[in-house]
């Protein structure tokens, strides 16, 4: 499944990121490497973007980009 579909409050393991417009490298540089555990903290009140917690920090990412992140629910 992809990160945009992970329920708020659930954890997941990152599998890979779709190599699309250079975002993959940027996200990996911020610590979103394959095998990393992350959790979806919440969705913004208007539904988008989402807030995730990864490697100890919180990151806001739009669903459009989250859809490029494949992960496995934990």
């Amino acid at each position, binding site marked *: 499944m992809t990160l945009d579909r992970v329920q708020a409050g659930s954890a997941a393991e990152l599998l890979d990121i779709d*190599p699309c*417009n*250079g*975002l*993959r*490298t*940027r*996200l*990996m*540089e*911020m*610590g979103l*490497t*394959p095998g*990393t555990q992350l959790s979806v*903290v*919440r969705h*913004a*009140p*208007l*539904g*988008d*973007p989402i*807030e995730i917690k990864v*490697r*100890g*920090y*919180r*990151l*806001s*990412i*739009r669903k*459009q*980009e989250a859809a490029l992140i494949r992960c496995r629910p934990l």
Partner: protein
Amino acid sequence: MAPATEPDRRQLIVAVAGNPNSGKTTLFNALTGAHAKIGNYPGITVESRTAEAELPRAGRVTLVDVPGTYSLTARSPDEEVAINSLLGRKGLPRPDAVLVVLDAVALERSLFLLMQVMEFGLPVIAVVNMIDAARGEGIDLHFDALRKEFGIPVVGTVARRRQGLELLRETLDDVLTGARPVPSPDWLWEPCAELSADLDAFDAAIREEVRFSLPTPSARRAFALWLLMSVTPHSELEVRPRLREIALATRTRLEAAGRDLAREAVAARYAKIDLLAPRLITRNPPRSHQTERIDAVLTHPLWGTAVFVTIMGLIFQTLFSWSEPFMGLIENGVGGLAGALRGLLPAGFLRDLLVDGVIAGVGGVLVFLPQILFLFLFISILEGTGYLARAAFLIDRLMRRLGLHGQAFVPMLSGYACAIPAIMATRTIDNRRDRFLTIMAVPLISCSARLPVYTLVIALTFPSAQKIGFLSTGTLVLLGIYVLSSLLALLAVGLLGRTVFKGRLRPLLLELPAYRMPDPKTVLMVVWERSRAFLTTAGTVILVMTVLLWVLLTYPKPGAELPVGADTAAVQSEQLRHSYAGRIGGALEPVIEPLGFDWKIGIGLIGAFAAREVFVGTMGVVYGVGGEGDPADDTLREAMLRDRRPDGRSVWTPLTGVSLIVFFMIAMQCMSTLAVTRRETASWGWTLFMLSYLTVAAYLASLIVYQGGRALGFA
């Protein structure tokens, strides 16, 4: 403009690098005195910030604030600044030591940047900042293990509370004076065999082409990897053609072979970090849930929205109304000074130049300060607490529908008060496309300087007795103006975003930092630095243009044919007609006549270039009732209403009024906005683009309104 950091070899240079939100700027401010030098890197919009610190043995050293970054990979010229200031590329001085500020809470992510810096062989000190927050999160950091594994000095700090700074100063002093031999930092990971071979293939070219110092084979490999990661077919990075060629060829070969550069270079570094992490970090259950608790309220659909609306309302109210008394104070002060000087100096050109040109110009610059001070006070406090990122998080969905980033909200909102602070506030938008797009659209939002003009024209052409329902026509027109100008700004964002700013949309990747108390010194420095930047660059341009405009509106003076003893208002009116501006207004008439404007309005439009509200005063002078500039003044309104065209029709028909209002809604008539745009985009090209697109659009819109209205039988 030369970068603020002159290559002064006698004074040692320390670069301060780190992730955004790592407290890097707070640490920088804590180490340095009250003065930071702000400059611009040539040709780009990134500011350079340097300041001095005094060390016991090394003496006075220069600290360079490297722009916050998660990685040294540069995807845009702006991002290139970080690596340039670390390596001494592009004429920047090479640092003698580098402080890499690590976020103790997100240590792994910070270690990635630290590894990149170390690979270049630069003398590094790791500063683990915000160790108090890490403790709260239940994170225990093992400093000895960090020192051992990375082989560099490591200091823990809480910059906001000025903790650990003594040890940091001492360590920095040791490193700079060579008192403590620091082992040369090196690569902590081994690239795979293929990547290794790829990087070695750069070596000969790097040796020949690179002018800055890359002393060791490891440093050259690090630069080869930087090239390979940063140079893409579409990148605008300035890299020597031969290096660019090798990088692109390697990239193509790599992709053809089905290899994955991000895995080989990025994930491999994180694999090393993950391997070390258990020795460096022990995670216990968090002791504090402060950020979670605050976020539960501030990002709550109901309470979060209420807080958002309240804070934004407060910003709006402050800029729109509460700055008014301060602006009045400045205007009165400058007016008083002008009056005093007028009494002291002998009459003549010099007095007029000084009083009506220069002092009025200085007043015209200073009057923006209250709004700038207030806006940046808000922004820096909100940014320091971590709320600004939440605000962007809350509003991003709406802003995105308009084609912008959540971070563009505060600048757009500020535009309703004044475009000057609004354009300066676009600095909080972290990607260039959205930032420039916002700058281009902000002048369309109805700022408060247009209000007197609207009030005058509405009072003139829509009698208040006319009512639709319980609202007077005038009120409805004013309401319509605000709605329409907001829509126009959004339309501009949509159109420019699909044409001029077409291209890859940068995704929103926004860190939501832990809530904390802002550092008072950092808040004050931001406010002070923004105000100073405005005064020294934009302010100078505004001042010069005000004086020029004053000359246009005053000279040449009419000769002796003026009747002696005529009343002042009539003399002023005659002078204005006779001036360059009056002549330009006359010459302009055939051009603006299709919009329903005559030469008098033409002069008004020229005067409005100083500030839009000046239109009212100029009209007062043109119509010979004095230039007090009160839109509610009956004498001016009556004089204007009596005005007839040569064919006997009234000049000020509702159609002319609407056409003029439309013109004021769109036209770029504010030279201060242009001056600030020049400063913030670092480009005359974009400034001229703003001026021309808005002027053409205003002309066309007014033309359509006036000619369309006439065709439909109005006026």
